């Protein structure tokens, strides 16, 4: 009986566990999760802060579902050390869990920027369900909040806190909101909506320090400016959680380096999801895409390989989708063109569409305001399709336009 061990119970870990159970009904499948919550949906976290959902609503699968699949879960236990030679993982409780094949699906963790006052009370990060409960609790006693970072999580958090009735400001050091996903035009449309919701948006400004009194945050300090805040949420990005793998001597880049079978530099140890560094489907460059669907796919592929089937993982491309302040947006591939790229845009009110073409290939697309058909365009990018006569900007663009090619 093969012993499979999975560290992490997020999208990748759970997808792998389910896949392993599917292909081997008799194998021992064990999951270890440092979080004390069962498998939950990250997309729900801002809505929990806003009061629209309760933390229980976010749970996607609990004890019952994992029990039914005979997946042993050790929830709230931290894996402290991997012993690759002895094929076992040591937990903080001192217990040793043996394995034949190990999957590191340890996800990512928020980036903690070094700044004076960063360790004060009232400073939060929104990443886990536990973080969400803490922010929810803090927001009940707070009148004002500053969110540092106007990325996807930052803006979602800001809007959620605003819905709770707090005075909210967002500070972004880049020149526009959501710099990773949007260009200047799209960002302007979005920023306008966020401001319309009553949030102060400050871009192109760095937070130099957090102001504290008696160890509690009271505001943020920018260049020649101060914004009062009873609480601060820092959302300047996430990075792969590689500590466990690094401790075992695994090769680390942006994440745990994997080969085409999602195996790390140590034989028998695999990585999937936000913790894994994979290859960009278009450029071959090492990336960590960190999106839900990619994590599910990688979890599945890693599981198949752990079970001895040689299935190569193609890689992925950076893409993201979100709805913020009522504006849906989908951004795929390279949306800020390089020197030789051609870009095409069409804008009508709050609807904006952009295509970046490199040579004959569609290299990136951005749909904002109306995202219908964005998947068709995304697939053209993924397949490195030659654009030919296909007009992605046309209001008639659909899968049938692609079929007709």
């Amino acid at each position, binding site marked *: 009986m093969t012993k499979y061990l999975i560290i992490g119970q997020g*999208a990748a870990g759970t*997808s792998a566990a389910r896949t392993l159970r599917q292909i081997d009904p008799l194998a021992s499948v064990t999951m270890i999760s440092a979080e004390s919550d069962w498998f939950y*949906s*990250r*997309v*729900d976290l801002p*809505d929990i802060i806003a009061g629209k959902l309760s933390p229980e609503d976010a749970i*996607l699968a609990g004890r019952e579902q994992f029990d039914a699949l005979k997946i042993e879960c050790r929830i709230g236990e931290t894996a402290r050390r991997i012993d690759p030679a002895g094929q076992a993982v040591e937990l903080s409780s001192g217990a040793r869990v043996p394995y034949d094949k190990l999957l590191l699906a340890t996800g990512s963790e928020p980036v903690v920027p070094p700044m004076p006052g960063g360790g004060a009370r009232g400073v939060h990060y929104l990443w886990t369900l536990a973080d969400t409960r803490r922010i929810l609790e803090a927001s009940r006693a707070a009148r004002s909040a500053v969110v540092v970072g106007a990325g996807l999580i930052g803006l979602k958090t800001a809007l959620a806190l605003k819905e709770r009735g707090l005075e909210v400001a967002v500070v972004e050091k880049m020149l526009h909101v959501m710099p990773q996903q949007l260009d200047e035009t799209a960002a302007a449309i979005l920023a306008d909506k966020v401001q319309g919701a009553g949030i102060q948006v400050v871009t192109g400004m760095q937070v130099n320090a957090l102001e504290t009194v008696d160890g509690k945050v009271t505001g943020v300090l920018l260049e020649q400016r101060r914004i009062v805040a009873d609480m601060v949420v820092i959302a300047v990005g996430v990075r792969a959680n590689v500590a466990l793998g690094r401790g075992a001597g695994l090769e680390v880049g942006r994440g745990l380096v994997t080969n085409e079978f999602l195996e790390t530099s140590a034989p028998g140890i695999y990585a999937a999801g936000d913790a894994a560094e994979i290859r960009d489907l278009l450029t071959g460059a090492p990336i960590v895409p960190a*999106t*839900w*669907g990619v994590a*599910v*796919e990688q979890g*599945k592929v890693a599981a198949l390989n752990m079970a001895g089937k040689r299935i190569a993982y193609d890689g992925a491309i950076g*893409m*993201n*989708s*979100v*709805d913020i302040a009522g504006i*849906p947006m*989908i951004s*795929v591939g390279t949306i800020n063109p390089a020197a030789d790229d051609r870009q095409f845009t069409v804008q009508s009110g709050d609807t904006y569409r952009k295509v970046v073409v490199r040579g004959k290939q569609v290299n990136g697309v951005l749909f904002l305001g109306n*995202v*219908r*058909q*964005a*998947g*068709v365009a*995304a*697939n053209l990018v993924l397949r490195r399709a030659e654009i030919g006569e296909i007009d992605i900007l046309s209001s*008639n663009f*659909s*899968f*049938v*336009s692609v*079929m*007709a090619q």
Partner: protein
Amino acid sequence: MKRIWVDREKCVGCKTCELRCAIERDSVGKTLYSAVQEEPKPVPRVGVFGRTGAAFPLQCRHCEDAPCLAACPSGAMQRDPETGLIFVQADRCRGCWMCVMACPMGVIIPSAYKTAMKCDACRHMEAPVCVSSCPTGALLFETESGYQKVLAEKRGRLALFARGGEGGASGVVGIEFVREGH
């Protein structure tokens, strides 16, 4: 498992399927008269695309390896274990549009209520409304083998198809099949 099949030669691009789908599946009043007065406007889950003369009614193919299922972070996108049909449990949908981004056929529609909307082959009804309303019979609700028979009949001879068994084909095949079939 029954699927919606398209006999491409018969589609004249009249959009009756769109109209009936919007009325039956997205309007409150369920009649054309009331549907056209509703706000937000009822939206169809099938779309007729392409030029006149080369029109194609497109709706979810219920792919076997469905990217929308993997992409959904909230558990709203589900597959009916009995019929294999993929549907959205709207109260679980958070409107993140990951499924819209993942669907290579563009058949998932962001609704005015910020939930993903898609064809579920009218799984609570006897037959999909697009199929029963198509005036030219361009849409069929059949098993794969049933559809092969229809095509074979159309040709007036038994046709041999290099296809896998039932349920072994992904949704995209539905369309390629039509290409090969006529």
